């Protein structure tokens, strides 16, 4: 199925939390400042309902998204209020992909965990949590994964300041 088909199907089964879709478009020739948007289309999903959405995508026989290929977060800009959650779904049976985006506010970066639906999210969520400071409620193992346990700060945020020293080893 192409993106349009997937989106229609999602609307037809009333997937929980579906907020809309964003598709690439050409730049507007009238407006010089508009550079357009390229790349992949994605669907926008409510972060609070993401686990339910993933479950629906997995269980629906025509979507059949049985694999979470990627689960990550993005900090779009320093002065942006939101963090993005980017999920890439892959269907082994139907051989199609779906990109999902959620917005969560930086000030209160809390969302439910998707581990009960896909265990592959476990490590991805741990990584996103330590890198962006997102709290995944109900995560079975909320420890740091890549960084040392006593690391301060969330390195992948755009406003992160590099440390001066760590355990007596200078970083300069």
């Amino acid at each position, binding site marked *: 199925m192409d993106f349009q088909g997937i989106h229609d199907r999602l609307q037809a089964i009333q997937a929980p939390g579906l907020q809309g879709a964003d598709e690439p478009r050409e730049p507007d020739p009238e407006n010089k400042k508009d550079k357009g*948007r390229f790349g992949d289309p994605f669907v926008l999903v409510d972060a609070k309902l993401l686990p339910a959405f993933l479950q629906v995508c997995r269980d629906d026989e025509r979507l059949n998204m049985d*694999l979470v290929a990627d689960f990550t977060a993005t*900090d779009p800009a320093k002065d942006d209020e939101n963090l993005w959650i980017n999920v890439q779904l892959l269907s082994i049976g139907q051989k199609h992909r779906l*990109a999902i985006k959620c917005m969560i506010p930086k000030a209160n970066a809390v969302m439910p965990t998707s581990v009960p639906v896909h265990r*592959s999210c476990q*490590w991805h969520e741990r990584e996103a949590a330590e890198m962006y400071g997102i709290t995944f409620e109900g995560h079975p193992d909320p420890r740091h994964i*890549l960084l040392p346990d006593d690391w301060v700060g969330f390195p*992948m945020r755009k406003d992160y300041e590099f440390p001066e020293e760590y355990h007596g080893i200078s970083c300069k």
Partner: protein
Amino acid sequence: MTSTAQETHEPTITRSDEEVVLDSGEREFMFDVRTQDMEVNFGPQHPATHGVMRILMRADGEVCTGAQPHLGYLHRCAEKIGENVEWLQYLPYTDRYDYLAAMNNNLGYSMAVEKLMGVEIPRRALMIRTICAELNRIGSHLIAFGTYGLDLGAFTPFLYMFREREWMMALFEKICGARLTYSYIRIGGVFNDAPPGWLSEVERFCDTFEEKWKEYCDLLMVNHIFVKRTADVGVIPVDMALDFGLTGPMLRGSGVDFDLRKDMPYELYDEIWKDKAFEIPVGTGEKGTLGDCWDRVYVRVMEMMESIKIVRWCLAAIEPGPVIADIPKTLRVPPGEAYVGIENPRGELGHYVVSDGGKVGVRVRVRGPSFVNLAVLEAILPGALIADAIAIIGSTDIVVGETDR
């Protein structure tokens, strides 16, 4: 460094060996005699961890009762760097996360950026890209297979495989000047054309490799001890594989016929697949259970041969022409976001790039297949012997540079 096994304990006698699945999904193993669990530390410096990974293992005698991988001993902040350097400058960093398959990483990153830019790649460049990526797949699988033998105690096949890999690296050195970190596949094509005589040398490499490949199969794949050590060990059922998001040989070893080159073809693979030039080896459970270590290794070994076929197809079809599209020195990538997953030797290598139209990316996300494949260890190690644990870790074929990035 006190070992807990020094304390003596009343052995508990249970009726039989059985596996109990608790409500939480955890599996608990019962044995005739239970002793107190001992925690042993695999790594970070341990010859079987394939790099600097650490596995904290609970063991009851020789039997592992719980395992917890600890990562981050090689965290090199590749994604942060991607947000700070220019698009083209990031290319060398892609070499370094999966350092065994640098060409494939270059390819994945270039394709993601090209998808945003919408450039047309010259056909010769596509050919050379395919040849390089497949040759590198062979090199990567050679190391995976060789070190797997090393894990199981067979030292010599490893050196034999390095012999062929050394030739492969010499081929890459001729085409781009580097042995391990190539940065050869660029955004828009490849860096330069293949030097004269290179393609015929690749042909000779293919001929030689086919002979040697049979030798390796004799040495390891059908070796009785090797089969005994790997068959029925570390079985990953299909639903577990999907639940953990496994891709690549890990998934195909479990019997799922899914390969991005065939099912979601990119670049030339569509054409090659339609030409029936290669096939996708899938685990069959020939020597044991479907999805065991032997199947995973089998898939890798067979894939080397398929890669040779793909290379031969490209060698037959390659024609002269330009090798790089006309792209500016300083890239300004149009705004948008793109995800490209390609078939790396270890599974789906995903690059998720976000651009706001500037010289520097907003986000360069790498979905490393090793990172995802590694998580399954937590589920399949309990119940295995310590020696089996080594076999299982080896069969996941991880590259720590990629798990930690």
